[in-house]
């Protein structure tokens, strides 16, 4: 038996996540839906609770001590996020509600200022609705055109015609990792091709940023969007990274307090970056929570997170294939090195609702449905899939539990 090269002990890490010690239907919970949202370590929960208990006050406004502390802690969190993704300046880190809002912000704010009827935006067939719908809205509002990078049989992007797809395009907007197929896309190749064609590049980092080291200089992306709640942070906080020159030139997204320098009866001027894009009272507790999540992940080490996931992916693929053979079909690339730990699967011809219902009886949490990727589902010719996904706190026992529960599912629905 090969020596495990997994630097992370998922079983030990579980201890830091209060929710993972609870039971469901009298059994220990097996949480395999981190692609939907991640669990939170105690340090994140404590940071948010501590904020509310000791320094809760509005930021950028107060002269009094706790207001200054709150402002300080928030901006420290921003700097942590900046360094986490290798951005040059805190001015390039915009806090949003989530990645969906971040993508809408680019489409609306950058898009409406820079795109006219007939301009081309290139997406891919594997995109999440958050990176499709805002562009459909611009098609209706401005009359832009959409082109789509197709997929190959393994669920990777088919880049054969990339240059001709990008010919004359203004925007390339793609995911770094599919939330359905687990496919990890060659981001640098894509952003280089976009730059060569004179297009800006936007990367959906929702699945990639929480699961491996991210460096926006290496990625070469003009914009990157991701959500805090998928990376051990709270819900209600997302990040838009944008290159400073682009953000400077963009008109603001939402208008109100905080994002202004001056407001008169006849007009207003905007605040400096990043606050130009952060209207109103920010989700202060959530930002601090995200900062704590970044610190926690830094403590684990993002390279270790990825290494752990590769080991778990190998274990998952081999376990499920060995135990179920033809009865199970796992979508996406077969090589564990080309994919993240997201596994959409078909099993025994059963509907995902029914699979996840039986799995729930065994306290195994997986997702069922379209995963906000209906065009991809249609392409795959399926109505819906069940999806299991792993993160830093999962271990091989979780995968064994999944396999056992699938066994039970198959048995339940057999005559």
């Amino acid at each position, binding site marked *: 038996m090969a020596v495990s090269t997994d630097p992370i002990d998922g079983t030990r890490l579980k201890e830091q996540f209060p929710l993972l010690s609870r039971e469901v239907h*009298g059994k220990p919970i097996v949480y395999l839906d981190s692609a939907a949202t991640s669990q939170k370590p105690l340090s994140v929960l404590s940071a948010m609770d501590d904020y509310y208990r000791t320094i809760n006050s509005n930021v950028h406004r107060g002269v009094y001590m706790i207001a200054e502390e709150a402002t300080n802690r928030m901006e420290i969190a921003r700097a942590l996020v900046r360094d986490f993704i290798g951005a040059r300046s805190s001015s390039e880190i915009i806090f949003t509600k989530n990645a969906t809002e971040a993508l809408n912000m680019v489409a609306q704010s950058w898009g409406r200022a820079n795109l006219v009827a007939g301009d081309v935006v290139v997406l891919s067939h594997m995109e999440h609705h958050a990176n499709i719908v805002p562009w459909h809205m611009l098609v209706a509002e401005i009359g832009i055109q959409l082109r789509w990078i197709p997929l190959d049989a393994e669920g990777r992007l088919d880049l054969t015609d990339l240059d001709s797809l990008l010919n004359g395009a203004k925007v390339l907007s793609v995911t770094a990792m599919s939330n359905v197929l687990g496919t990890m896309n060659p981001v640098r190749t894509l952003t280089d091709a976009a730059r060569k064609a004179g297009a800006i590049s936007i990367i959906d980092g929702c699945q990639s940023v929480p699961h491996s080291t991210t460096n926006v200089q290496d990625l070469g992306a003009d914009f990157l969007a991701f959500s805090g709640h998928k990376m051990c942070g709270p819900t209600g906080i997302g990040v838009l990274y944008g290159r400073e020159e682009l953000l400077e030139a963009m008109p603001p997204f939402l208008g109100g307090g905080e994002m202004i320098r001056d407001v008169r009866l006849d007009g207003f001027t905007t605040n400096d970056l990043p606050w130009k894009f952060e209207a109103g009272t920010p989700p202060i507790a959530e930002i601090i929570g995200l900062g704590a999540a970044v610190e926690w992940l830094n403590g684990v080490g993002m390279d270790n997170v990825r290494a752990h996931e590769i080991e778990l992916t190998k274990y998952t693929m081999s376990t499920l294939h060995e135990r179920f053979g033809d009865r199970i079909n796992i979508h996406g690339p077969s090589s564990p090195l080309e994919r993240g730990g997201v596994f959409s699967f078909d099993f025994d011809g059963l*509907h*995902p*609702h029914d699979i996840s*219902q*039986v799995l729930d009886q065994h306290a195994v949490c997986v997702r069922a449905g*379209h995963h906000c990727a209906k065009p991809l589902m249609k392409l795959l010719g399926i*109505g*819906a899939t069940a999806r299991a996904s792993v993160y830093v706190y999962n271990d091989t026992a979780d995968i064994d539990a999944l396999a056992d529960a699938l066994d039970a599912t198959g048995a*339940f629905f057999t005559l």
Partner: protein
Amino acid sequence: MPGLEDLYREIILDHYRNPRNRGELETPPAHRVEGFNPLCGDEIVLYLDLDADGRVADIRISGQGCSISQSSASMMSAAVKGKTAAEIDDLTRAFKAMMSIHENSLEGAETTEPIEAPDVKLGDLEALRGVVKFPVRIKCATLAWNTLAQGIEEASA
């Protein structure tokens, strides 16, 4: 703790494996209506042929979905053939009452009052009574009925 046997009665699995009235009808004269489950993953397409009296002369079901949504649709199709819009309305309300859905309250919200249900025989549909113990799946069971109501309204307009 509700067991899966409460949810997946044999009759439900029978309708799932052998769904009645599958297929399509020519439109027009039939009316086509689509429905999507907010708990995503179930899609239904109904073809309704209403005669001059507003009775469902014929009905077909297409689309894909889970055992609950498909069996409910299958049972529904058998139950509504030959019925008038008023009879279907009574049947729908009786079914939804069984699903503990009160017309006037939020879907699925708990109500301590017993729900007024028309005195209608539900027949095979009684098998879906167990769905109530799995609230997330109520939307699966009611998908066909909501789609039917929408279709009848559209066809009668």
